């Protein structure tokens, strides 16, 4: 064997399947760097929550007990003096994100399953007529002051009359792909655009600053994500499994609960986790829809930097630390479902 140069010894494996020393050094330093990059902010928030005002303001200190003397004053302030406010925001956040996630995953996965397994072919012209008659009804109510019940009845009648009369003159149809894209496009719009109409809507029905308003809004906002993710997931379940169950005598409902649902555990868990985190962290919509009673954690955090005493980094850090905990717990609970290889052995030989 020829003498190996230094570069060869560093970057070419001596044996197939082994990682050369040089590569190892490069790879692990990159990984180490990235780990520090990701974990440092969390560490920083954690130690800041134990710092006194002096420690924060007099320049950076990194190591508790060495650089600075940790104190519980911020924790005390939040959990002893402001106990009620903190607890309220915390329970609000938990209630809202749990219910919003449940609602969103329930409706979204049913919609996704329907889109994955049933061919829809609505006529484009019929949709157009429907939208036009709705607009007409709105204009009638809003501009001309027509009674809304009357306007709705007329609009529905006109819609059915028009599709009967004109239906045979247009043939263009939309497919499942178009419906799916329409769903996703709802998420492309920035929430800022719709926040004012949403605010006015809930104002007019008197639901501002309630759990229900925020739950409904979050559920709707996250629906496209659930549908998108679960659609892909249901699509990946071989249809033969469901056909086989049908031939074995199962009804559609039984097939869904016996075959489809157990096989979608991983997808459902991942989707639930994602939606829950989105709902947990949401700020903008909560800012508009809640004033005091329904305030959530992100609002509480943001409020910390608006006090007359300046930005209270230590208090903010405490809130952030407690805010991270439920997400971590959820991730640990759901993580075991997000295992790979669920479908192994189903159809491949």
């Amino acid at each position: 064997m020829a003498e190996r140069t230094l570069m060869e010894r560093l970057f070419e494996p001596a044996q197939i399947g082994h990682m050369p020393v040089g590569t190892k050094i490069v790879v692990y330093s990159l990984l180490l760097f990235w780990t520090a990059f990701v974990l440092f902010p969390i560490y920083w928030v954690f130690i800041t929550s134990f710092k006194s005002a002096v420690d924060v303001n007099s320049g950076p200190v990194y190591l508790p007990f060495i650089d600075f003397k940790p104190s519980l004053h911020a924790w005390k302030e939040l959990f002893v003096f402001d106990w009620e406010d903190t607890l309220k925001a915390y329970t609000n956040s938990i209630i809202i994100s749990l219910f919003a996630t449940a609602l969103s995953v329930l409706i979204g996965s049913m919609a996704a399953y329907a889109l994955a397994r049933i061919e829809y072919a609505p006529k484009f012209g019929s949709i157009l007529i429907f939208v036009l008659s709705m607009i007409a009804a709105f204009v009638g109510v809003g501009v001309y002051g027509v009674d809304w019940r009357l306007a709705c009845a007329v609009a529905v009648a006109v819609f059915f009359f028009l599709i009967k009369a004109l239906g045979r003159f247009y043939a263009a149809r939309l497919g499942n792909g178009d419906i799916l894209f329409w769903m996703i496009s709802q998420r492309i719009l920035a929430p800022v655009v719709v926040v004012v109409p949403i605010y006015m809507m809930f104002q007019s029905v008197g639901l501002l600053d309630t759990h229900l308003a925020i739950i409904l809004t979050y559920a709707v906002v996250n629906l496209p994500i659930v549908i998108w993710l679960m659609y892909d997931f249901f699509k990946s379940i071989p249809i033969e499994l469901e056909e086989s169950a049908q031939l074995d005598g199962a009804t559609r409902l039984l097939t869904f609960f016996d075959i489809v649902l157990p096989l979608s555990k991983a997808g459902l868990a991942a989707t639930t986790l994602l939606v829950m985190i989105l709902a947990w962290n949401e700020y903008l919509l909560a800012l508009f829809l809640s004033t005091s009673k329904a305030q959530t954690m992100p609002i509480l955090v943001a409020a910390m930097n608006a006090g007359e005493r300046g930005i209270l980094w230590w208090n903010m850090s405490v809130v952030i630390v407690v805010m991270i905990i439920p997400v971590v717990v959820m991730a640990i609970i759901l993580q075991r479902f997000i295992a790979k290889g669920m479908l192994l052995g189903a159809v491949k030989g």
Partner: protein
Amino acid sequence: MTVVLNQITKSFGAAKVLHELDLEVHEGEFLVLLGASGSGKSTALRMIAGLESVTGGSISIDGRDVTNELPKNRNVAMVFQSYALYPHKTVGENIGYPLKIARLGKSEIEDQVRDVADQVQLTDYLDRYPRQLSGGQRQRVALARAMVRRPAVFLMDEPLSNLDAKLRGHMRAELKHMQQQLGITTIYVTHDQVEAMTLAHRVALLEMGKLQQLASPKSIYDDPETLFVAQFIGSPPMNVAKGSLDGGVFALGDDRIGTGKSLSSPDAVLGLRAEDCRVVEAGAGKIRAKLYANELIGDHTLVTAETASGMFSIKAEKEFDAPMNAAIGIDFDPEKLYLFDGSSGARMR
């Protein structure tokens, strides 16, 4: 139980994939639907199963019209090409699933599952999951699941094509034995003519959604009605040569072959099976040819010879040997040749 297809058609949009198919499957019969991919054979099977809607015509099983019956009410069992085993259920649960849906008692299910598992030698694997089984074992689980409820009809969609060649031969024999023992009417879809020939009581050959011929393996081989059937069945495929027929004499290049029939046609096709041909010395025999290749198969040598109208395959003695490009003659018994119309492909007798 008998299965009767009466003028069955199937269209997907404008594409007609099945043309007025008439088929009567007798009690206890093993009927093979044979055809290339896209011939409509799988569609026909799925229509019998109820997994595909019927565009026109009717299907009845055991004298009962099931055209619009749900799959679960047809009392048919299906074995899918992909096996379609439920990956989250054990082998025992997979086999017992139809019985569980039929709400049989727990001990009864266990007894019957054990019974079928014995028949397909799976007794030791009942607690395993499909992913822990080999291809052949998965195949047997699928088979057992179909057998366990003693259906009126077995439907099999290329059940052996995911297995390797050796196992396929073994399972083929097992399948034939099992079907004979159970005596259950079986409809079996395959593109493999060897499977069709070895398993079937009768073969239905489909092409482009049309039934080409329905006959026993022996008569479909010995007495093909069209050129398509003649070329589809048999390995190597039947040798064909284009030429003209004049008063019973077939003109192939410069050769004149007496057919013993008084037929005339300017555009005719002569067909000859490889095993009906003999290689003889140049100048002797009925067709002049040039040796193209010799392949020793084991029990015989497959000779490929170049004639004035394409290649001919000839089964020769295994000791046969001759240099490449040598001039040879091909001889045969005129009784053994087939004549087809050149344009329609219909058999000329």
